[in-house]
């Protein structure tokens, strides 16, 4: 086990190195750079920037150097000083921009996850145990409905309902009053008050697919011989369900952690934009469009690191939960 962990960690180093390089190359691939985009924006508002000024800007940002040099400066900055560079567009250090958004994204994602599991797992179990009952059909109907509705549409509808019918302030995660205020008890309450709409929207499609997966997993397990054995021991139906088939049906979910973490950053961008949430997704999109390469690079590096960490965590958890899996 320990040897497995050490080798896995050691493998992560070259992986991250390669990934960071690829990410950097990919960001540079589209024609032009941040200065081109910047000039284009200025030109849109009828300001003319001449070639000298552009060259000046490029030199200041270090964009005139060969790519490999730029990469070297970037990666050594991260490794030696924890400096992710400067966002061109925001004129702020990247790290300052990212962390607050990441924290809010974390809050949102985990609330969504809790809501999803809290609804989907019991419904999925019920649906499997009472296969082809009225309850199963109702759950199946709603889960297909939830799968079919695009989440941005649901976001628009809910926003309309909340704003027009119930007179609630929608959009964002904070009221104006708390937008820039330092953290306080009031701000936390305000956050919770704003959180439910995005949580519902994001949870709907996740819940729907999770119900289907849980139902299918459970149906596989329910006919296993060990369930009959447990019944022959005299266990009550509920206890034996929870202890045997549910326990085994949950195993596949642990492996989903691997893609849950990277989803923190890149998931649900459209909903976040529609609801103008201050999460990581919209910022990533914007930085890519503006060719704000250090900001985009930091995000992509983060996604990759989270993917690697996520799969490591789910491997370890799987080995703990399922004794048949040996890490060697």
């Amino acid at each position: 086990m320990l040897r497995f962990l050490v080798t896995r960690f050691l493998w992560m180093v070259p992986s991250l190195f390669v990934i960071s390089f690829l990410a950097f190359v990919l960001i540079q691939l589209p024609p032009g750079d941040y200065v081109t985009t910047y000039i284009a924006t200025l030109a849109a508002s009828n300001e003319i920037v001449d070639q000298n000024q552009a060259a000046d800007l490029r030199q200041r940002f270090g964009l005139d150097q060969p790519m490999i040099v730029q990469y070297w400066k970037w990666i050594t900055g991260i490794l030696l000083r924890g400096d992710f560079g400067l966002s061109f567009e925001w004129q702020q250090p990247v790290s300052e921009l990212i962390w607050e958004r990441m924290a809010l994204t974390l809050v949102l994602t985990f609330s969504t996850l809790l809501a999803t599991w809290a609804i989907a797992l019991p419904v999925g179990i019920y649906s499997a145990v009472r296969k082809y009952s009225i309850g199963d059909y109702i759950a199946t109907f709603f889960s297909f409905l939830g799968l079919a509705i695009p989440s941005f549409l649901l976001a628009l509808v809910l926003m309309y309902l909340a704003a027009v019918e119930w007179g609630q302030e929608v959009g964002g995660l904070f009221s104006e009053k708390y937008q820039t205020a330092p953290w306080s008890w009031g701000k936390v309450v305000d956050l919770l008050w704003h959180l439910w709409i995005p949580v519902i929207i994001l949870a709907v499609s996740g819940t729907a697919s999770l119900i289907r997966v849980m139902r299918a997993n459970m149906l596989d397990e329910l006919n296993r011989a060990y369930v009959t054995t447990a019944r022959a021991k005299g266990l009550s139906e509920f206890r034996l369900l929870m202890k045997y088939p549910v326990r085994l049906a949950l195993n596949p979910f642990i492996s989903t952690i691997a893609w849950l973490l990277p989803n923190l950053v890149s998931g649900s961008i459209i909903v976040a934009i529609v609801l103008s949430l201050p999460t990581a997704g919209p910022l990533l999109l914007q930085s890519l469009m503006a060719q704000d390469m250090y900001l985009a690079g930091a995000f992509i590096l983060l996604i990759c690191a989270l993917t690697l960490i996520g799969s490591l965590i789910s491997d370890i958890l799987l080995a703990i939960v399922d004794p048949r899996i040996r890490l060697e």
Partner: protein
Amino acid sequence: MTGSNVVLEVKDLVTHFPTRTGVVKAVDGVSFKIERGKTLCVVGESGSGKSVTARSILQIVDTPGRIVSGSMMLHRPNGSSVDLATLNPRGPEIRAVRGAEIAMIFQEPMSSLSPVHTVGDQIMEVLRLHLKMSKADARARTIELLKQVEIPNPDRAIDRYTFEFSGGMRQRVMIAMSLACNPSLLIADEPTTALDVTTQAEILDLIKRLQQRHGMGVMFITHDMGVVAEIADDVLVMYHGKVMEEGPVDRIFHAPQDAYTKMLIGSVLKLERKADIRLKRAPIDEKAPPVVEIKNLVMHFGSGNNLVKAVDDVSLSVRPGETLGIVGESGSGKTTMGRCLMRVYQPTGGQMSYRRADGSVVDLVAADKHKLRECRREIRMIFQDPVGSLNPRMTVAQIIGEPLLVNEIAKGAELDDRVADLMRQVGLEPAWRERYPHAFSGGQRQRIGIARAIALNPRLIVADEATSALDVSLRSQMLDLMMNLQDKLGLSYVFISHDIGVIRYMCDRIAVMYRGKVVETGETEQVCDAPNHAYTKALLSAIPRPDPRARRMGQRHRYVA
């Protein structure tokens, strides 16, 4: 009135399975009694309803099955009685009976235990549930139970998982679990069917001793008449959900009344000696050069510490028209040997000289692709599982015709004729050609497999446990068919089986395999009646004979390598 010794009294039990095409009467008016300290064996072929009867007693019949009528009186030692049929299948009363007063063990010890819970956890659960024991007490009792079923190092075994145990050990764990609350009745549903004969003998022995110690009644479900003769006090013969005959074991075996029982006992006894066709046949020409000569065949899997010598320096030969039986327990390498012969596996070393019809000799180990392809037309295989070895999406005609088609031997109308002819040869109606495999019974499916194997006019057929999945009454029919085809087509067989009865019935010579090595070869009679090697002796002594007057579990030898 019933004596005080009766534990369970079942009267006119009827269990139905409503399906889309109508009601299946799985159990149709079954009555019997089980006495304390006695063993009732329920025998019958697959689909006879013996398992459903057992499950009905505990009301754990799989959905959509349900008990329609009948009574099942459980007589408790304190004199009170309860009718199990009237209890709610989910209610607390029946749950208090399950696992405590009536315990059950199942056929597949691997899948019947949860793979993700420790053995101890699963046994302690019963103790804590029924006897309300504390954790520490339950643990101590579990260790004691594991010791009773002779699991080595019980205080360490308790924290291990099922996959860390062998099949026999897992079944011991199941038994320990069922004994946890000292039940008055133990229901064993084919508990030894998935096990090797030597392991089976040990498990039967264990159940017997525990029964004597605890004085419980045992209801033992099996299709193996040898096991019945060995352990039964009374026998219940079932067929299509009905009781055909019931009585003391000696009467069932030596003076059966019912026609079905007679047929069942007859087909078992038939496999106790050599087939009539073989006794009548002229002896095989010993000087004829062998069809296949295997020399020092070696097949290794894995490497380093995980090296498995599946086949370890095996030398054998098969003469034309001869049947060579290969017998051994699971893990002895007999199946691997068969697959090497087909070159499904690339052997690690050795020689397999195959003599073709024109007299030329090909070494199958070294043969190139082209040569191998030609030889494979002449060496065919019949598999154990008649369900898994037929493609469910192909019709019978397609399955049987496939080898002819892919080898470009026949097509169109000629192919149709050949397929019809092959079907007639194995006793199938050519009119069934458009049906799919699921429409056939197990025996018929195996006939399809045989027709496919002889389609290319082969010279050698490797049959790997070809009759193991079939009921006894079908087994001798299938073997007779194979021998008829052998004489008609001049085939040689390599017949792989763990069932010494089948081997003795049909084979001319036997090779006994143990841990990858051939420990003994010889004429069938010599090996079966006067074995030389200690392992062969142990193996033969572990096989229960279908005669209750010749019980011999007690005089079994054990072989320790």
